[in-house]
């Protein structure tokens, strides 16, 4: 099975946060909940000079996702193509998945009592459309959808 995933080369990220708003427009996540998040790392020395880099936090669609194991109501499942889906209907908002996620990629809507995460826009993928963030919005062209047999999910790389 070919596994679709996001490939984000964070070296090229300018920090414009367009992907965050593209995601909002598509998924309408509530205020305070971001399914993809860009953050500016503190300047640090890399290769003998000071560098500023942006980091990207988004669901990695792990092969063996700890969030799914942690969920008491089985709201998080792994599809046959490897996409990890959080179904908000059964979700009780207990927050166990937030604790379990090693990447801090899951958000909680306190008011409605449900968790949110990137489902890789599977509702678009399944209909032949690209995920909102990877649909040529990025001015650095650094977010792409890739399909591959490899093990890991979203690859977020730096240089």
């Amino acid at each position, binding site marked *: 099975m070919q596994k679709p995933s996001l490939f984000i080369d964070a070296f090229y990220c*300018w920090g414009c946060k367009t992907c965050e708003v593209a995601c909002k427009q598509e998924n309408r996540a509530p205020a305070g909940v971001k399914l993809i998040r860009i953050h500016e790392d503190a*300047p640090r020395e890399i290769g003998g000079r000071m560098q500023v*880099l942006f980091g990207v936090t988004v669901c990695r669609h792990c092969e063996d996702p700890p969030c799914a194991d942690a969920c008491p109501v089985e709201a998080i499942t792994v599809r046959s193509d490897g996409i990890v889906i959080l179904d908000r209907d059964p979700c009780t908002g207990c927050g166990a998945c937030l604790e379990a996620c090693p990447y801090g990629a899951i958000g909680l809507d306190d008011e409605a009592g449900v968790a949110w995460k990137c489902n890789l826009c599977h509702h678009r993928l399944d209909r032949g459309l690209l995920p909102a963030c990877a649909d040529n919005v990025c*001015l650095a*062209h650094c977010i792409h959808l890739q399909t591959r047999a490899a093990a890991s999910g979203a690859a977020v790389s730096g240089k």
Partner: protein
Amino acid sequence: MTDLTHANVKREMEVYGYDRVVRSHCRMCHGGCGVLVYTRKGRVEKIAGDPDCPINHGTLCSKGLASAQLAYHPDRLTHPVRRIGPKGSGRWERISWDQALDTIAERMLRYKTDCGAESIVMGYGTGRENEAVIYRFANYLGTPNVLTAGHFCYGPRIATSILTCGTNPIVDYENHPRCIMVWGNNLVISNPDCYKGEPFSVSLNRGAKLIAVDPRLTRIASRADIWLPLRPGTDAALAYGMLHVIVTEKLYDHAFVENHVHGWEPFCRRVQAYPPEKVEEITWVPAEKIRQAARLFAATKPAAIQWGVAIEQQVNCADNDRLLMFLMGLTGNIDVPGGQVLFRTPRIRNVGQFGAHRDLPESQRRKRLGGDRFRLAGNFAIINPKCVWDAILEEEPYPVKMLFFISSNPLLTRANAREVYRALERVDFMAVSDFFITPTAEMADIVLPAATWLEMDYIGDFWKRHGYLLPRRKVIEVGECRSDHEMLNDLAHRVGQGKHWWDNFEQALDWILEPMGITWQEFEQMDYVRGEVEYQKYKTRGFSTPTGKFELYSTMLEKWGCDPLPTYREPPESPVSTPELFKDYPYILITGARQPGFFHTENRQVPWLRELHPDPEVQIHPETARREGIREGDWVTIESPRGRVRQRAWLFAGMDPRIVSAQHAWWFPEKRDPGHGWAESNINLLTDNAYESCDPAMGATSVRTLLCRIAPEDGKGAS
């Protein structure tokens, strides 16, 4: 219009059941990207970049994507209102468009009769492509006073480039410069004027060398081959230092200098005052780095300078612009592919003609506020803001009775905000056209509901210098909102100027396009038009300057009594110029670094955008923070001799510890009182607008570089 055959457009329509997609042209900033607007049952459901647009190639920014949230915002003003309480009381009543425009017209005619048309000041902010229509209105009304950001933003580039080489030289990213020097600009966040971050990004990824001139380590500076972190406000000295290297090492384009330059000898004498070692003392940039950058820039062809507004909001505004143009010109990069091109606009009636500048009577032109003091500005129909506040408060040189601000929020965006407030409080009558009742609008007598770009037909990028024109097509209507163009066309009839206007604004668009032999209806069917692209036009026709040459020595400035050669002036407040003050205010404050999602004062009520950046933040070096007892995220006070505001600490090691960098234009629409927190974090409470601090030719206010002190807000700081 090209059929929207792009696979994902058809698929988007099918999957989501959109009933319409309109190709249009975004205007959430000064920019202008091609967009696709998807609607369902007449409502905008999705906005995407237009993959076929030559400007943005399908990419977009956060602001463009969030446009519908602005257009449909629950707080949006959707009908005209009249104030029924005292100024700033927040008490308004709904009135009709006829009542609103008749009231404004009646006031205009009364002031014109009693005090002269010059007592009416029109104004706009960064311009929603309404600049030409506002100038047209003002010129036919007979007022020489249009208050814009033009004294310190873009206007100086236009004015100085006309003096130097005839028009604004635009980086030719389509032909990929091999070296890009980004000077005081973060275009990947701001997408300014004729530029977008996307083509820059692509040229860089294709291997262009990169030089960054910025006091802060931006991501662009991070990726640069050479980063020149200069002391804020010393750009002119740095540029002269590089020119010194280029002249003494003979790295310039000899044929260009020999045949196409005016003033080479006096320029060479002036340049001798700026050897790199001396420039190092002024700028904090090591002489060796200045040499390296100059050599890299001069030796790599084609090369280009990506400049920005930061160099203009300084006492050296006009000379900074000119010196960067000298770098472009002397290295042979003017009007060559992949360099900086003097693009041609398509054959239309341009902004100057539409603005009817020639129809302002000379007797009125002579009354332009500040025209005698700031000669370069005055000759380009630009005025300095303090001149307006003084005319209101001191009635000097004559009283200003009426303000009409169109998409402008000067209480937040102009220097010395306390003085701006006093002027707005005092002025006899003020009308505002905007999306919301902003802190400035709260001081108005009448506020008109302005249309967003989604609600108008227009010739997009009409005023730009990249040579493209793109149709902006109306998609929706919201309440009674009207475009500023239609509003002024209507108002013009009510003040007796109807013969210079049209029955409706579509006819004005036809008039603009007429020389191309097309109507708006025909243009609207096209994707875009572009002026003829031709390089090195100066070789056969010379430059459009008085001498026909590239003017290092400006004959126009000489005529106006200004220094014909650029010079370096120390910032009016600095460790060097005001050492006594520096003891009490021991940090150099820079302001206005751009944040994603905001366009100056705009969008702080748009949820998807405010969420990107909930609070105003001031960057402080960790060493400095430690010394002052400030931790990450603390609210801190920033204070200058003129005022004090609060922002949150963002510890940032990517700049000299002597520098503090505060954000601009902050207000808080969520605060429901009529002030909306305008005086809490507004950095312009700290800035100075004294005439002596302004650029002597352009009147630019020096809002980017001043002195400050900082302390934790709880008062438990180190000292």
